């Protein structure tokens, strides 16, 4: 067995031996990914998975390297880019992907992409 295969085996044994935790965080990511435009209910999710909300947040960060909220924002911004590309207005895109305020949408969009949604819209219709 080559060094890389051995290394994969070592990482799997050391870091990924708890399948229940892995299934739980994959389930949470799936829930966020499929419901990003809604107001997410982590209390409901944690009750269904029989895990405390705070433990769930910690687990997600440990396995994905970012918090569920960071992932949600990334997901919403990516989806908003698609909405704008498809011709939706900036404000319609903002609400379609689940943001509740246009100003927080604009600042998060700029933080993630480097340009405002308005500038992004213009760059798509040059």
């Amino acid at each position, binding site marked *: 067995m*080559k*060094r*890389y*295969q051995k290394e*994969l085996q070592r*990482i*799997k044994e050391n*870091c*990924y031996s708890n399948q229940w935790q*892995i299934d739980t*965080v*994959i389930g949470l*990511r*799936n829930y966020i*990914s499929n419901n990003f435009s809604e107001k997410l209910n982590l209390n409901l999710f944690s009750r269904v998975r029989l895990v405390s909300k705070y433990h769930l947040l910690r687990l997600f960060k440990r*396995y*994905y390297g970012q918090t569920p909220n960071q992932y949600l924002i990334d997901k919403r911004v990516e989806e908003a880019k698609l909405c704008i590309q498809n011709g939706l207005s900036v404000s319609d895109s903002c609400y379609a992907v689940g943001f509740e305020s246009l100003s927080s949408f604009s600042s998060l969009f700029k933080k993630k992409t480097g340009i405002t949604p308005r500038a992004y819209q213009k760059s798509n219709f040059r």
Partner: protein
Amino acid sequence: MKIKLVSVPVDNQEKALDFYTQKLNFIKKIDIPVGGGNRWLTVVAMEEQDGVELLLEPIPIEFEPAKVYQKALFDEGLPYTQFNVDDVQKEYDRLINLGVEFSVKPTEMGTTKLAVFDDTCGNYIQIVEILE
């Protein structure tokens, strides 16, 4: 400052272009002769043609350490870089049918699934899928 380019060293640019476009379905973006039979040769992902370019960089013939480094990684099965795919198993099946050889079959690693193949130009390349 922006990241627009990453590179993989290849032992033959023409063969590499063939593999990366015909098997991996990347698209040739820039091709400029730079003398000595070498080219500034980049490819991009079909879905992200404005995205990061991958430079298929010729290994300098007279610079032995580059060859030694690439061969050492290859001999130990270490991937030179990785690409993301939506479905590792599907991509594995597709590439196997095209005769691509894998050193690591589709394997779940925590919240990801990965596999590693030989790019026939001196490198192992990992493909990874984020499970959700």
